[in-house]
């Protein structure tokens, strides 16, 4: 049986002044209320705990999703960032985007962890490779 990655998300859907708003909260986040702006368009919000997912992981994840939807970040307390998603075109399903975004957050977090763990050996390999190289200009 293939291994399934599970993302700890809870989902709440409600309507504010005609807008469909989805609030997703990563389960490990502290409780808190996220302000909702009703402008008539569909908006989804994901609360990210920056003690769990580094700002670097969050930024890298955002960068890969700006071609799929509109993203805006708001600081919410000292350890939370609210990620606001709006559709860039009508075919985008925000619930799917948020699920993929949450998975990518984990992916980026793990990548950062692996990069940190393997930094010394990578630096050693590179320095070894360059130690054997001859950078002097060839003499004719």
């Amino acid at each position, binding site marked *: 049986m293939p291994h399934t990655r599970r993302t700890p998300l809870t989902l709440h859907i409600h309507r504010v002044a005609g807008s469909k708003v989805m609030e997703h909260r990563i389960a490990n986040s502290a409780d808190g209320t996220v302000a909702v702006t009703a402008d008539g368009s569909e908006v989804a919000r994901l609360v990210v705990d920056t003690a769990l997912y580094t700002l670097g992981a969050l*930024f890298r994840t955002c960068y890969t999703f700006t071609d799929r939807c509109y993203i805006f970040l708001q600081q919410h307390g000292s350890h939370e960032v609210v990620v606001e998603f709006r559709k860039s075109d009508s075919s985008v399903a925000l619930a799917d985007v948020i699920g993929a975004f949450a998975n990518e957050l984990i992916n980026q977090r793990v990548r950062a962890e692996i990069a940190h763990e393997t930094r010394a050996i990578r630096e050693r390999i590179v320095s070894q490779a360059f130690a054997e190289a001859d950078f002097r200009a060839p003499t004719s």
Partner: protein
Amino acid sequence: MPPLPRTVRLSPALYPPGSIEKARAAFSDLCSIELGGSGNDVRLTILPLEGSPPKTIEEFLNYALCAAVEAHLASTE
């Protein structure tokens, strides 16, 4: 009829001033920007100009986010 203006609260830790200036310059033909407040309470109002596309505000914010991400990654790598 241009899109309605939108005011958002910005955290300088997430959006450094340079990223907003970069977006402002790139979108100068489509919208004007008003900045208010100071410190951690910066408010940004985006006012689309006549004839600008409906998603001008969202495009502006996405552009500013990309500029902020690039600045963040350049400073940490």
